[in-house]
């Protein structure tokens, strides 16, 4: 007896895959989503939850603005929110060189529609009274915010089940075969899953997944360090970053402060995030304390590492897999948590035969020339 044929199988249960699956299920497709672990427990559940335009790649700003809106209204379209908060954002300069960087980066982002203005330190401190008196200049953006990313998995799981999608957590796909007018997904320790269409949404594991289809697209893996403090009195109200982008700082309603910014730890796609590099942990926390001196009052409660995927040109790959009909890929979006729900919608629109609202990001530009022949 052969297994049922799904209309679409989504491999990878992060925000990109889960949104795509959700929209496809709501669009009437018989959908299965598979993840080797629980939903949204890798990058999508451990990232800093920053919904900022200051750090998003300039050309992705229009996507991030839409993503920001979607997160803030998640309780409406997703069913359960992720404690998203809208606030203002400041990016700071502490040296003359950083002032120049701030001007250049703000200008580039303004070109793509981010309402960022350069303001003097006095204005920055009026916006954020807890700021260090060492600030020389700031970039101000009225659109910023943050979410609690660890809530993402629960929200998506309930929405997917509600939409009738089959959620297969703890199902590790180890390969894909073609045939019978579709794909057959090999699952570790379980029966294969068959589907007419395939969406690969495996984050830093996309390189390996594309390899199943005979394609070679290198995906770099960043090991981003995150630090959360114990609760402390309100010491800040905005989202803070620095000119070179190496800090994100926000205080949640419960009083904890999350320190991120992409300082690197030790790890890889195979082992996950393995270890903090002590110098980077101390550097990251020093920078945070430099920006908000009151952080000296609290204690670091937990440090973890999140894996972020990056393509050769640091731009996303979202669209049809070149040379493999009915296969799609989504991932490697810089600041991907912010724009993730929007990116997933765009791909779902493409698969459902609707015109996506904005251009996708053709993966074929990233193909290595020596690529093996595609799956037939």
């Amino acid at each position, binding site marked *: 007896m052969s297994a049922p044929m799904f209309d679409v199988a989504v491999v990878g249960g992060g925000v990109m895959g889960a949104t795509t699956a959700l929209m496809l299920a709501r669009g009437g497709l018989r959908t299965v989503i598979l993840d080797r672990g*629980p939903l949204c*427990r890798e990058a999508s*559940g451990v990232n800093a939850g920053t919904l900022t335009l200051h*750090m998003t*790649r*300039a050309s992705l700003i229009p996507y991030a603005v839409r993503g920001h809106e979607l997160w803030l209204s998640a309780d409406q379209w997703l069913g359960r929110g992720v404690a998203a908060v809208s606030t203002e954002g400041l990016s700071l300069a*502490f*040296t003359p060189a950083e002032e120049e*960087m701030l001007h*250049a*980066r703000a200008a*580039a982002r303004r070109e793509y529609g981010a309402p960022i203005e350069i303001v003097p330190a006095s204005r920055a401190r009026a916006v954020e009274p807890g700021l260090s008196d*060492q600030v020389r200049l700031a970039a101000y953006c009225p659109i910023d915010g943050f979410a609690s990313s*660890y*809530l993402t*998995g*629960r929200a998506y*799981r*309930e929405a997917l*089940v509600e939409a009738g999608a089959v*959620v297969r*957590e*703890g199902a590790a796909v180890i390969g894909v075969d073609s045939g019978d007018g579709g794909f057959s997904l090999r699952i570790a320790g379980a029966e294969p899953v068959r589907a007419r269409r395939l969406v690969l949404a495996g984050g830093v594991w996309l390189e390996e997944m594309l390899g199943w289809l005979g394609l070679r697209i290198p995906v770099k893996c960043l090991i981003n360090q995150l630090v959360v*403090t*114990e*609760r402390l009195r309100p010491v800040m109200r905005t989202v803070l970053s620095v*000119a*070179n*982008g*190496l800090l994100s700082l926000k205080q949640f309603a419960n009083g904890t402060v999350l320190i991120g910014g*992409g*300082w*690197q730890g030790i790890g890889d796609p195979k082992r996950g995030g*393995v*270890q*903090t590099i*002590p*110098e*980077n*942990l*101390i*550097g990251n*926390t*020093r*920078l945070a*304390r*430099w920006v908000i001196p009151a*952080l*000296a*009052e*609290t*204690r*670091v*409660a*937990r*440090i*973890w590492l999140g894996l972020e995927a990056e393509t050769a040109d*640091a731009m996303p790959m979202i669209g049809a897999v070149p040379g493999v009909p009915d296969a799609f890929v989504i991932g490697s979006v*810089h600041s991907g948590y912010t724009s993730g729900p929007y990116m997933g919608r765009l791909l779902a629109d493409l698969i459902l035969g609707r015109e996506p609202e904005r251009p996708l990001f053709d993966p074929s530009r990233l193909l290595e020339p020596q690529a093996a022949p595609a799956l037939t």
Partner: protein
Amino acid sequence: MSGAYDLIVLGAGPAGVGAAVTARSHGLSVLVVDENETTGGQVYRATPQAFATRADAPANPDKKEGAGQRQSLLASGAAVAFRHSVWQVSPGYRVDAVGQGGPVHWSAPAVIAATGTTERVVPFPGWTLPGVIGLAAATILLKSQQMLPGRRPVIAGCGPLLAAVAVAVLDGGGKPAAVLDLSGPGDWLAALPALASRPDLALRGLGWVVRLKAAGVPVHFRTGIAAVRETADGLAVTPCRVDADRRPLPDGAGQDIETDCVAVGHGLTPGTEITRLLRARHRFDAALGGWVAEHDADFRTSLPGLYVAGDGAGISGAAAAHLQGQLAGLAVARDLGRLGADAHETAAAPVRKRLAAAQRFGRAMARLMALRPAHAASVAPDTVVCRCEDVTRGEIDEAVAAGARDVNQLKAWTRCGMGPCQGRMCGETAASLVAEAVGSRGAAGLWTGRAPLRPVPMDLLTGDFTYADIPLPKAAPL
């Protein structure tokens, strides 16, 4: 302060001291790190130096053993870093800590984690009230601070600490209002053969029981706490009879007991923070206190250069811990090439023999203290399980029903275990509840190990610095 050693021992309780002194005796350079002022861990915790000791203070065998161990470590020539909190151990190995002077780090090819244990409390209504403390906390007050936890405390839970605390309260001039023991006389009888392996300790225990009886302290077996509530002048404890699985009996509630303090402990959980952080292999064994790092007979973990010893390797008591430390110290000496195979065998054989006896006693006590799933399952829906984040039993059940299949998923969905205690207080109860739904503690998993090993103060971690001291990475892409 920084430097390289042959061996770094984390924890200066009986296991750590045993390990350090043994390794030193084979010529290894050794550093011992501990959060406390001096050696002793919990069982041999020293009285603060500023305290005067009464001349008529009763003789205490723990005190004598603790002083002897303290002396042996000082005489061994091991370097010590007391009042240092280790926040990370990196492979290879590098140990990062903070002291009063700021961040420090040391390195060594071998690390022995001798990190002891955390007391477990299975929640009941009122367990977070002021005046409700752990049995272990009561022993710290009594032993180290020479303070009574209360003048008429209720002492509740399971294991040998019950009688030890009750007698120490009597010695200090108080009188326990009651001792509530989850075990029955039959459970204690079952432990008797193992107790015979340490007649000294068994006699001491018997002496405690006689003392309590002579003093007229009511001891209730197969009895737990249904609830604690505040009264005008203290606390009222509602006791409850339990069955052999420690499940409260439907009509088991007894008369309220008026008290000024509740000291309660439901056993001990091995401290596996370091081995989890480094991703050594672990296994679950309720009789050993829960999850423990897998180790061989010489206390090597699954990771080269990483060793465990003492209660952190599985609850077996202070005497066994000291001997386990010695074996781990010998293994390090051998693995670093300072001790040949034959010499190692000659040195280890008598220690192993003594350990077998000590361990038999300690493990019998550990079995008395092991968490019974029915006990955890008895927590009421509106009782807070995670006191850092105010997560109730009901919220945990709801998350499990909605699809949370392991403890880390539960943590993300409910914040259970995300607070400053880093899951130490709620972890066992929460995991037991998840295990009920997914079939086993193995399937429910264990908290992913994370740095910092203890919450680390930002001011000490960052130290004194200027902007130029921050090694800013290159800018993120535009």
